[in-house]
């Protein structure tokens, strides 16, 4: 028993993904702790567990996504709950400060971190909190984490879903599905920016391209255009707005469809095209602007993803990343765009744990490193 325990990494088990905008943290809370373990458990380890599991918000900006919690799962021979926590990257210095205050370095755990911040904040972790990060590549982690969560499932339900009848707003419904045979897939990760990967197996993938027009662009432009401050606020406004007051449609130019090229009158001809006119600029609502920003960014990602899928000859397009969190406008739009422009050839797939796969992948690395001799 003891022998096995020694092979396992010491608690706490964390995986961390430090992105451009958000830090994603997964925490494995063991529920199979023996009395013996409980006795040996140092005080600050207990306090960390209690702090994380008994709160849903941390400080001003940290949030635990309770609805995403994976319960009673087994990792590395231990049973427990996997918690999903996020906070803005801006709060990173405070987080490191906390690590020092809680004397995290005494716990002899390895902090596995991925995302750009693993590199950017490496020195601060070392200097401020005496913590050595194990830096991991974000795309490796993303794929590993995604495949793992899909295998484990979402508390008895499938992790993956798609939209049935994506072209029809009335009958468009979310349907669960499994990624039984996931390869090849085009993986579109929409964070602050966007990375597009062609994945052929767990270890065989390539980054096809990326675009700087991502979630950061949506929020950045919304903040500048509407004065909003958070992603939630921006999405809330967008959900109430109408982008056709902002965008110029094909029918605004041609009076109807542009038949010569098979373009529907309702297609967007020029994003923000109406805003070239001063009168229209003066009369536009913030909600309409937020909606147009969202639609513009989403359609553009859809368009690039679709072209990549065609170029790479891949039919399954999986969209992940925190841009899709609580963002059904975008998920439905992406599903529609994939279906419509490919004439049903491409299928858009989504995952419930949108933005957390990198962090999960980092945690798996922790478990893997200590398993190795």
């Amino acid at each position: 028993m003891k022998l096995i325990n020694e092979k396992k990494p010491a608690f706490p088990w964390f995986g961390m993904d430090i992105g451009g905008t958000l830090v994603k943290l997964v925490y494995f809370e063991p529920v199979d702790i023996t009395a013996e373990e409980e006795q040996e458990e140092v005080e600050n380890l207990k306090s960390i567990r209690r702090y994380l599991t008994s709160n849903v918000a941390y400080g001003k900006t940290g949030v635990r996504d309770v609805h995403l919690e994976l319960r009673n799962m087994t990792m590395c021979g231990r049973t427990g709950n996997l918690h999903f926590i996020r906070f803005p990257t801006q709060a990173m210095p405070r987080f490191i400060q906390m690590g020092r205050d809680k004397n995290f370095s005494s716990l002899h755990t390895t902090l596995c971190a991925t995302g750009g911040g693993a590199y950017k904040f490496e020195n601060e972790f070392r200097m401020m909190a005496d913590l050595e990060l194990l830096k991991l590549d974000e795309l490796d982690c993303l794929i590993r984490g995604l495949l793992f969560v899909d295998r484990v499932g979402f508390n008895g339900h499938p992790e993956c879903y798609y939209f049935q009848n994506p072209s029809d707003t009335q009958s468009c419904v979310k349907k669960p599905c499994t990624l039984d045979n996931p390869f090849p897939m085009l993986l579109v990760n929409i964070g602050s920016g966007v990375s597009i990967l062609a994945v052929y197996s767990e270890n065989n993938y390539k980054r096809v391209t990326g675009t700087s027009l991502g979630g950061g662009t949506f929020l950045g432009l919304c903040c500048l255009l509407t004065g909003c401050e958070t992603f939630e606020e921006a999405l809330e406004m967008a959900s109430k707005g109408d982008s056709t007051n902002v965008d110029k449609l094909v029918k605004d130019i041609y009076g109807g469809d542009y038949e010569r090229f098979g373009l529907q009158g309702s297609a967007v001809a020029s994003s923000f095209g109406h805003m070239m006119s001063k009168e229209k600029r003066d009369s536009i609502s913030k909600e309409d602007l937020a909606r147009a920003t969202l639609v513009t960014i989403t359609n553009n990602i859809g368009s690039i993803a679709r072209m990549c899928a065609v170029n790479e000859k891949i039919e399954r397009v999986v969209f992940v990343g925190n841009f899709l969190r609580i963002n059904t406008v975008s998920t439905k739009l992406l599903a529609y765009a994939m279906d419509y422009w490919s004439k049903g050839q491409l299928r858009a797939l989504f995952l419930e744990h949108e933005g957390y796969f990198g962090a999960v992948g980092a945690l798996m690395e922790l478990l893997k490193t200590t398993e190795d001799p």
Partner: protein
Amino acid sequence: MAECGRVDSNTSHTMDKSITLPPDEIFRNLENAKRFAIDIGGSLTKLAYYSTVQHKVAKVRSFDHTAKAAAGDKLYEISMQEEVTARLHFIKFENAYIETCLDFIKDHLVNTETKVIKATGGGAHKFKELIERKLGLKVDKEDEMTCLIKGCNFVLKNIPHEAFVYAKHADSEFRFQTTNPDIFPYLLVNIGSGVSIVKVESEDKFERIGGSSIGGGTFWGLGALLTKTKRFDELLQLASKGQHASVDMLVKDIYGGSYGYLGLTGDLIASSFGKSATADKDFSKEDMAKSLLHMISNDIGQLACLYAKLHNLSRVYFGGFFIRGHPVTMHTITYSINFFTKGEVQALFLRHEGYLGTIGAFLKGAEEDNPNQYSWGENYAGSSGLMSVSPDMNPMQRARSGTFPFDMLEMDRLERQLVNLPLLQDPSSYIPDTVDLTEDALAREYWLYCFEEALDGVVKRAVASQPDMPEAALRAEKFRQKYRHKLQTLRQQPFAYGSLTVRSLLDTREHCLNEFNFPDPYSKIKQRENDTALKYYQKAVKSLDELSWEEKQFALVQGVLAGNVFDWGAKAVSDVLESDPEFGFEEAKRQLEERPWLVDSYDQWLERLKGPPHKCALFFVDNSGVDIILGVMPFVRELLSRGTEVVLASNSGPALNDVTNGELQILTERIAAMDPVIEAGLREDRLLLVQSGSSSPCLDLSRLDKVLAMVVRERQTDLVIIEGMGRAIHTNYYAMLSCESLKMAVIKNSWLADRLGGKLFSVVFKYEVPAGKPNKDCGAFSPS
């Protein structure tokens, strides 16, 4: 999207009604205008019309030599005749001036046969009623994209150096592409308010394969919201001053450095506007505009690359109001294409991009005239160059100057259809010009100076050529102003008409001379020199015949070279000719450099002559007088005697003292009357005189008369001889031919001689045999 722009409702089209148009410059030849087309975009109107231009041309006519008394001493008479040529006019001006322009057209339109005006562009609908009312023409709307593609095909085919690569930090920002006769397939990315990506496969086959809603309208609309700046140009101005890194989240902002594993550098934009989401600080207008420009340019570039890759296309042209001559957008698009394709695809731009729609609309309306059957040439005299003070440049500056801003393109219909010389080794890589003055600043400086220096002489010559016309002096003065202005423009913007070359400087001068009805300033000089030289022909031939075979071959070459010294185009020579009309052929020979020459493959040539005769020689001739009569003709005579057929290619129209086809016809007849070898050659159809299709002192082997190309093919030409500085040094020095070639010239310019490592009157004698075609029979035959 196809829409080229939008009608700015803020600018009333009546505001500039009081402005007076400069009628000498704008809407030229309106009296004879036949067919109209108009393309009204968001802010600019482009008008096209077809007109005929009456020009004076110098014609030569042989005197009837049976009636000797009437003929006097002269060989032929020169007469000035009126000739009508077809010309396409294209004018671009701001929509604000549309009413003024329509009024002007109405007042000057004499020929009212036309009933219809073809129209395209987003604004065509808005101005339909105004146009119909003012001009009394029915507006007939044409599909925008069809017009755009038609126009694009037309300029790519007919205008050399139409397309260019933009390199902001290079010595010359514009790198012009050589005209490839095979223009298809290509991708056209039209960035109007939205983006349309069109694959063009042939003259009539094109397809919109994709597009994007993020385009010029997004830059304009979103830019106006973010910066409270109304005008598109002002937004670009802001962008060119901004720093995007304060607004964008870069890779280094996330990673602290580069993302080495993926090869993403730290300065790469990870998230456009990513910083404006996290920081609640103020951003400058400039920085936001710059960030927006990058975001949109990168996005369009990325999509263009994805489509180019999918359809396996490497030629991608960018157009639309977003691009239209704006260095800042050309730069960001170029940057984006280079980034996404790692240099595999080049972003190409077009000099006349703004005119594509109206050219296409015009062509649609002119289909019955088959404009595509002809070759057309850009008239440098009547066309504004790239980046001239055109309506789409520097609106603020222009507003202050108070002038009516317009930009023009004129294209002349060429009498002959022009094609490649079939003997070019690789037509797609052929570049006529030896030195690109756009890139070579030192050479540019010199030649611009040289042409400016020579201007007085040219003006004097032009006036002297028309002694019976009292207003010639005034016209010559106008010519001087025009050409001097062109030279000044070229000093500032060497790229104005494509790559600047000695050829383009010469051609521009010819165009300007023609424009002011000086079709042939050297006609009288040529006549006099031809007369004089003819008198010495028989004597020259006789003395050659007295030489041994080997001596004769050398004397013939020396004769061609000495004859080539007689060139009014070269300042060093024209000075001597001017001061000493008796400057003789023999003296010219003495001036020549002693062998070994600067470039000397005479020994190889002589060896070759010992071998079997060539089947057919194509000889591009140069000057009249001593050059053609005492230099070239004896050489031709020897070729004929060897059993080689000879095709003499001379200019279709006059240029300097170059012998024209018309003159050469008469001269050859006269020589034939004295020389049985030439006479037999003509009679037996072994000596042919054909037009080159050109009126330039230089030679572009990719634009030659179709008939010439046919003759060259039929006669199985196996030797090409190119003579003179203009044709063998300034152009074609490096031209690779698929048969034997001989380039002969005397360097009559000390600066150029210096540059080539020689001195004044150094000789270039360049005999080349293409690789893989060894002279296997060389030396097998002995001369009789």
